[in-house]
């Protein structure tokens, strides 16, 4: 019996197996719609930025305010030093990855609330994951929102390949927001010019990388990278957000140039 309520794809899905590669391929034929194509997602680092206090944060807040009305900004926050402290105590207590991710969420929430207090007089709201359906309204009205960067996986966090620290943290959470909304850009605001061959804070011989593909980057097999590795893996499967930019937010004007679409500092792209 032909069920006219179901499209051909509907029949495949209702009757077929979701582990069947042929069925899965059918689901990717139409490109997805960009939901917020004019929005830019920023991620403000925890350890690299907010932990520096007023000296780093105030100039960045000024630059965000200067861009209100020029660019829509969805602003996520990192965890930083307190997340590292909570992880190390949690590890010592033997807590599982899922619980560590709950602890990390609390710290990135504190940082989000702090940026929110500084931007409150401009009418910028802080939203939790449950309030994301209101995000388009806030963006249309005020041009920016703040959220905590941790993805809301909590007790359902996957174990990492190595060690116990949750692999999907605030870089990943912010990146996934840019991908799901089909945002115009994903900008990581850190305290380095972008990607180096080693941690430039520890290794003076570290070389700066201006532009690199995900494949070239994984071939380098660096001991340390500037963004969480899952972001690089996810970029290769992404339908919208196939490049990210890492900028040094301590340099005045960098954020504005990145929002204007200029080629500032490191670009990492999926081939």
């Amino acid at each position: 019996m032909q069920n006219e309520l179901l499209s051909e794809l509907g029949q495949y899905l209702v009757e077929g197996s979701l582990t069947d590669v042929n069925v899965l391929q059918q689901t990717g034929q139409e490109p997805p719609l960009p939901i917020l194509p004019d929005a830019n997602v920023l991620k403000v680092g925890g350890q690299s930025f907010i932990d520096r206090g007023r000296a780093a944060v105030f100039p960045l807040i000024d630059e965000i305010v200067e861009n209100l009305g020029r660019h829509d900004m969805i602003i996520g926050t990192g965890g930083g030093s307190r997340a590292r402290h909570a992880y190390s105590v949690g590890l010592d207590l033997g807590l599982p990855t899922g619980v560590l991710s709950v602890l990390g969420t609390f710290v990135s929430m504190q940082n989000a609330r702090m940026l929110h207090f500084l931007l409150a007089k401009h009418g910028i709201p802080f939203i939790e994951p449950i309030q994301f359906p209101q995000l388009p309204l806030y963006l249309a009205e005020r041009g920016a929102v703040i959220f905590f960067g941790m993805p809301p996986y909590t007790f359902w966090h996957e174990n990492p390949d190595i060690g116990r620290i949750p692999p999907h943290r605030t870089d990943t959470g912010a990146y996934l927001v840019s991908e799901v909304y089909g945002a115009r850009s994903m900008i990581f605001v850190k305290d380095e010019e972008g990607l180096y061959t080693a941690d430039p804070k520890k290794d003076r011989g570290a070389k700066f990388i201006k532009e690199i593909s995900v494949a070239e980057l994984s071939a380098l097999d660096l001991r340390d990278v500037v963004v969480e590795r899952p972001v690089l893996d996810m970029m290769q499967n992404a339908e919208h957000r196939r490049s990210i930019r890492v900028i040094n937010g301590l340099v005045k004007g960098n954020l504005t140039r990145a929002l204007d679409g200029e080629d500032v500092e490191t670009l990492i792209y999926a081939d």
Partner: protein
Amino acid sequence: MTTQPEGREDRRYHIDSMLMRESLLDKDVQRSTEVPVFRMLPETHVLKIGGRSIIDEGREATYPVVEAIAQCLETKKLIIGTGGGARSRHVFSIGIDLGLPTGALAELAQADALGNAHMIGTLLSPYGVVAIPPAIFGHLLPLFIRSAPGVIFTGVPPYSLWEHPPAIGRIPPHGSDAGSFLLAECFGSKDFTLIKDVDGLYTRDPKQDASAAFIPEISVNDLRKRDFETLPFTA
């Protein structure tokens, strides 16, 4: 205790900890965090009841499963996840046709698994076993499981808009099988059982191919090597 000037040579305020000033992306730092894990609920069993394979079949398939669970509840603590079944498949097909991305589909799928959790919760209510809303489930699980012989949750994990883009197509990769497994892992449950309408793993889909051979036991590595076209659970 905070460390700063002199400790502020890098102009960041730190709290003293093993991970202070370390990049969490450094592979050596990651290796140093390989430590034994505390088990929160070692006496519990996690079950996942298939949406399409059991609940969608109605009374005929669901009642016997509920009776079997009721019997187990007399002696065991059960944490029961549910899948979304045919309604999730349907909303996926409409959502894909409308051009929605994976994260949007994952958000929509929550509702179907939650509906099924409430159906099973209705049938198990004489035993004090009910569906718990996802927002409080994780945090209050140890309390609920101490007070009742079992609890029901939506097996679909709360990845929603933050779902990972899949390698092929657009179906959210973290469905109710993955969600129930991850919960069992985090809480250190004794075991994890998928309740389906087939005896388990076959070399092919046994509903479509009578010559499919049953596999009573296999390692994850062997399973990956044999690269079966379909599996009775999501990879």
